């Protein structure tokens, strides 16, 4: 057995202190600029700051830390006393937002370790962060067998790298009662494993409270989604990404609930005033697949340059479901169902119809004029869905751009190249 990678307090502290400063600087800069499109983003980034602060506190207090893959939302873990959940893809998820080149050293570390370039950057970034010893300590790592081959194998590699156990829960292929039964079984298994490894017991009252907070968050996002059907669309395109980030980090917390409430109230306020991200919407877009993390400003640019608002993005599509908090059984069953329905877990597994049905519901329900589908270089099932996407757009007479890039690493396709490709498409296909 080779040696395991252990917690490196200095590297952890340095990395996440820098990250926290960057988050605070970003908030400060947005407040100074005063772009009304960023009001909600500022609130979400404040929650990110709280998340980072709590992570530091958990390390200081020597709480048992669980690394959970981003397709396990954290609310369930708040039921465990003395346990603190940290989204494992924290570095991959944040770094490119704070610095377009921020993830590169971690991607490079993973590739130098032997991972091929065509592995998803989320997984390369995560494993790179582990290899660079910047991650917080870990008692247990948990992940679903979702959303893709890259993630499934990344956690198998992780099992070899760290001493803590790694548990992978079997996500069903089908979206049916049998599937829920399977996943429910695995969520129970995860709960028992947390109890065993972290020497704790699930406190169902605590869990229930977190579930109530998470439910309100879901309700708020679903209503906000509905408001986006209005023209003008109350909120800017980039907000969808940040909302997903908020749910990955903070569902089940008071801050998460409060920010989701703030976003919904802001949406209602704007709608009542017939105001939106754009005073005059020339084009309503959908961007269905992950945005370029290092260039979320692409949505602002689309709005400013072309009067084109992203009415709904993939990450912004609230497909989550509610959890009945009545009993432990309903909580676990509905958490399983919710995790089968969150963004990516729902559309990226199973047959192509799981993706296409949601794609079409946005295309037809949000009054979309034109479609951008990020053709993520490493997303192999996505690449092989292009034929279905193309056919659906052709049948409906909607201009389509299959936009190729790496979502977290700007080196394969630069920001300029992304903008140039979109500009050419807008000028020749959409606005012509």
């Amino acid at each position, binding site marked *: 057995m080779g040696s395991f990678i252990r917690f490196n307090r200095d590297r952890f502290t340095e990395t996440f202190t820098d990250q926290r400063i960057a988050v605070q600087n970003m908030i400060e800069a947005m407040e100074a600029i005063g772009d009304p499109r960023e009001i909600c983003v500022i609130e979400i980034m404040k929650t990110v700051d709280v998340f980072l602060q709590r992570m530091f506190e958990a390390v200081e207090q020597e709480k048992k830390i669980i690394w959970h893959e981003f397709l396990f939302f954290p609310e369930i873990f708040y039921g465990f006393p003395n346990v603190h959940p940290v989204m494992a893809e924290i570095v991959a998820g944040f770094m490119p937002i704070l610095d377009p080149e921020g993830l590169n050293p971690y991607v490079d570390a993973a590739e130098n370790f032997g991972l091929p370039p065509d592995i998803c950057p989320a997984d390369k970034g995560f494993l790179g962060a582990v290899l660079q010893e910047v991650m917080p300590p870990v008692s247990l790592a948990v992940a679903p067998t979702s959303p893709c081959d890259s993630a499934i194998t990344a956690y198998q590699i992780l099992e070899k790298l760290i001493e803590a156990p790694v548990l992978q829960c079997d996500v069903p292929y089908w979206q049916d009662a049998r599937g829920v039964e399977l996943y429910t079984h695995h969520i129970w298994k995860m709960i028992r494993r947390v109890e065993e490894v972290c020497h704790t017991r699930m406190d169902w009252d605590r869990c229930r409270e977190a579930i109530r907070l998470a439910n309100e968050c879901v309700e708020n996002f679903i209503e906000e989604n509905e408001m986006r059907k209005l023209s003008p669309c109350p909120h800017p395109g980039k907000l969808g990404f940040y909302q997903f980030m908020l749910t990955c980090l903070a569902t089940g917390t008071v801050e998460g609930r409060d920010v989701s409430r703030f976003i919904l109230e802001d949406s209602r306020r704007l709608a009542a005033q017939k105001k939106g991200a754009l005073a005059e919407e020339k084009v309503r877009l959908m961007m269905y697949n992950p945005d370029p993390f290092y260039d979320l400003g692409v949505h602002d640019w689309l709005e400013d340059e072309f009067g084109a608002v992203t009415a709904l993005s993939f990450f912004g599509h609230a497909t989550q479901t509610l959890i009945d908090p009545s009993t432990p059984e309903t909580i676990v069953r509905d958490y399983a169902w919710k995790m089968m329905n969150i963004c990516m877990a729902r559309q990226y597994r199973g047959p192509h119809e799981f993706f296409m049905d949601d794609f079409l519901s946005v295309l037809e329900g949000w009054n979309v004029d034109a479609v951008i589908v990020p053709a993520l270089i490493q997303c192999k099932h996505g690449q*092989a869905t292009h034929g279905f996407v193309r056919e659906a757009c052709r049948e409906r007479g909607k201009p389509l751009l299959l936009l190729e890039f790496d979502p977290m690493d700007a080196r394969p396709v630069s920001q300029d190249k992304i903008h140039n490709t979109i500009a050419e498409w807008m000028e020749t296909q959409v606005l012509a």
Partner: protein
Amino acid sequence: MEELERFAELGRDTLNPEMRSWKEAGGKIVGTFCTNVPEELLLAAGVMPYRIRAPESRDTSEADRHTTYLNCTYCRHVVDEALSGRYDFLDGFVGTNGCDQMRRVSDIFRAVAFREAAARGDFFLEYVGAPRVPFDPASLAYYRHELERLKQGLESHFRVQITEEMLAASIRKVNDSRRLLRDLYELRKRPHPPVTGAEALSITVASAVTPKEPFQRLLRSLLARLDGRDAAPNHRKRLFLYGSELDDPAWVQVIEDQGGLVVADGLCFGARMFWDLTDEGGDPMDAVARRTHQRWSCPRMVDRARRQERVREMVRDWNADGIVGERIVFCQLWGSEKVMTDLEARERGTPTLWLEREYRLGGTGQMKTRVQAFLESME
């Protein structure tokens, strides 16, 4: 040897002479991509299971309406062949989520290539959604239910009732092929193996695309004549070949031409396909489900430690000097398995070389150089 030439011939074309005879006699053929779909069930329904390949494909122009240059070329070639009508001899297709890309290829087969045939009612379409945690009872139960669904579909479409006895008989028949192949692999443990890796691959490929009876007859005949044969008297090193979909013996031949004799493998079309036997006692459906779900896995399964232990055993038992790994470019599962294998091999001091390839043989100059350097590094 005549038998070896015959095996090579069986794998040369998409539709081989034995399949033609099977069809001419009124037999049905159902295509699959992956051993997630157990042969035993198809055989029990009286149909011939056929592992889909694209040995005659030359380009992917038809496929690239659906796939892109960033997809693996095995997927692109089989889609191209399907859209070109090359698999029109099939009477059915059972898809599965072997990997993300094959999952979408199954979608394209179902929703595009075979849609009209299935709508007419004369083409069988089914899907097996395979879970990924091998020793979990709920995952196994889920998988068993998938097989039950497949069984019902086969019964309904092919108007046959698959009894326990029929399934038990087909288990024995498939196990017979597996035992014969294991006998062949046992011979390769010898210091001077009687077949090369390329020859062995042509035999295992033939096993996946040939009706069982003629295949077993031919393999028995070969096994009876192998004593005393030294397939590669001048080989320099013994190699274990590990990796993804590879059905072209010519690719292995390139390695062996440099002096590296492949003595065992862990390939989709090789030992991983047949090594584990199905239990011949007890409930046959349980046995098929357990065997398939818990067989020597590929990296789609959450099964790293057991998989690597298998690799370690094969390297040890076949006395391999090193591991040559192969993956088709853009295969994420095997891109990660490369890392997992290297980590383990490094700990054990086993030299490894990983080669990236496309589905169709090409770039052999670079491959030769790398294999030569690898062999020299071990000498």
